[in-house]
């Protein structure tokens, strides 16, 4: 600990992580732009289809900056994005920023509630399994959690939709509910939330189980037991807190995968949101909307990862020097 900017200080670590994050953000848009160069033919013509008039193609080229070299396109896109302008929808002429901002809250509510549910269910399941390793309950829970992880979220979503909406009629089939009507929105949220959370319940349960088992074999736990602390207290008070740290770490990656899962869930339940917006845009090759949505999704992903890394580094100084390298090995 010598100085604000010394090697291994939080400030220096933060600055280098921040620089990487900005690079990744710029790079991801550059990648998207450069792909239009790789594809043979005129992107404007391909994207607009064969029936587009030459005038329309020319306007589109101007709008997208397709006449400019790659680095200039990326630069122009980010200059506008920093001013809050993500471009214009080629089909409806609406501002992409407005469209994204209208869709974003729905997706954030969906993703956060799904994570919340997954944590609420996953941690107790993981705990139960870890307290009695090798028992019948542990084995049943193990198979159960793998099944949850392995079943694709869209299969879960369709089956939930079929049983609870089509057959039983307990939940609505479509939409996100009346705006401003909280109970109605909650009613519409439940099935999509469960569908999105299911895989993560299994994942978190497995993670908590393995890290709790590891923590329970540490010397300080033995000490706590030797002091005659009740087992329940040892697990709940001392071990669980440490065992949850890896869970925090995967939530960073988790947000990204949830954004992917949200596409399916939003399409299946016909919910407005970032996922269904980007999906609709891709189907009609509405390129500016795709680009705007992608920027926001990648930005959310990068920012959550950054926050998680900071939280981690703040909790554990050893991480600061190695995390930059080590965490790159992950990916759910």
């Amino acid at each position, binding site marked *: 600990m010598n100085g604000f900017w010394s090697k291994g200080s939080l400030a220096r670590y933060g600055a280098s992580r921040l620089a990487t994050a900005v690079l990744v953000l710029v790079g991801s848009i550059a990648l998207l732009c450069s792909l239009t160069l790789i594809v043979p033919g005129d992107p404007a013509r391909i994207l607009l289809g064969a029936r587009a008039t030459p005038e329309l193609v020319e306007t589109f080229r101007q709008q997208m900056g397709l006449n400019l070299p790659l680095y200039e396109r990326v630069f122009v896109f980010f200059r506008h994005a920093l001013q809050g302008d993500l471009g214009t929808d080629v089909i409806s002429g609406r501002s992409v920023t407005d469209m994204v901002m209208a869709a974003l809250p729905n997706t954030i509510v969906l993703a956060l509630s799904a994570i919340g549910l997954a944590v609420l269910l996953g941690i107790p399941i993981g705990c139960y399994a870890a307290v009695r390793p090798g028992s019948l309950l542990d084995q049943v829970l193990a198979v159960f959690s793998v*099944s949850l992880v392995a079943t694709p979220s869209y299969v879960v979503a369709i*089956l939930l*939709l079929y049983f609870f909406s089509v057959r039983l009629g307990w939940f609505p089939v479509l939409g996100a509910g009346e705006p401003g009507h909280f109970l109605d929105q909650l009613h519409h949220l439940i099935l999509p939330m469960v569908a999105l959370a299911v895989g993560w319940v299994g994942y978190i349960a497995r993670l908590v189980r393995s890290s709790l088992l590891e923590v329970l074999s540490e010397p300080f736990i033995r000490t706590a037991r030797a002091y005659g602390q009740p087992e329940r207290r040892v697990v709940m008070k001392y071990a669980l807190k440490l065992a949850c740290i890896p869970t925090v770490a995967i939530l960073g990656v988790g947000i990204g995968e949830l954004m992917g899962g949200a596409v399916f869930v939003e399409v299946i339940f016909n919910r407005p949101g970032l996922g269904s917006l980007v999906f609709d845009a*891709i189907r009609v*090759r509405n390129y500016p909307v795709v680009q705007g949505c*992608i920027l926001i999704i*990648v930005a959310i992903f990068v920012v959550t990862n950054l926050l998680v890394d900071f939280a981690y580094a703040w909790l554990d100084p050893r991480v600061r020097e190695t995390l930059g390298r080590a965490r*790159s090995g992950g990916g759910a």
Partner: protein
Amino acid sequence: MDILRRIWRSPSGRIGLIATLLVIIGGLAAPLLATHMPNQIDVAARLSPPSATHWLGTDQLGRDLFSRGLYGTRVAVGVALAVTAIALLIGILLGIAAAYAPAPIERIILAVFDIISAYPSLILALALVAVLGPGLQNIIILVTIVFVPRFGRIARAQTLTIKEQPFLEAERALGASGGRIMLFHVLPNIVGPIVVLASMNIPVVITLEAGLSFLGVGIRPPLASWGSMLFDGFTYIGQSVWPVLVAGGMLTLATLGFTLFGEALRDAIDPKLRREP
């Protein structure tokens, strides 16, 4: 043989092995096992439940679900194996190259890996579809792009750990060329963990491919794929649940089987790897 025996010993490994074999045999023997041609239309029997002629029922055009499901296995497993093999090859080469390359090149390779990984995998695949367009060949290309960094990173990390070891130094002293060292001495020593990662990657690819096909941007009809079967079933779910049950069931059997098999394989080859969630 020893590895297979170790996999067989754990209950979940056994389930995984059986499910994986079922899926692979089903795919390979699809022309023998199928009771109908996968695209044979029988409008009179559309959306019918299981019967003696159609063992698992029919879809909205009266096509036999059992036969289509079997042929769908070929697409799913074929794409998964192709993608994993190509991504493995490119990833390993780039990873070893990055570990040996001068710092600027290493940094460029890693930056590209970082950028690709900054996308959630489905979103990247969708973005690539928007540019490349759908279809079997494009799906293989774009899903490969998604997975190259995962193999590349671990190959690089593994190479770095053995790079300075005496046996490689000895090889260098004997005058072996850089390429020879990388191919014949580094590669065999890092391949174990990477193969395990590759096997655990297969269900992820299956899920992604079926997901893209479900969204209508993957495998194009009339080629039978679980994803597009699922989508057709979803469209007609008010009339019959069988298409969804068959496609979703086979898909889940495959992903579950490969997941359990991959984990058992990992535990059998190297229990140390277990710590990675």
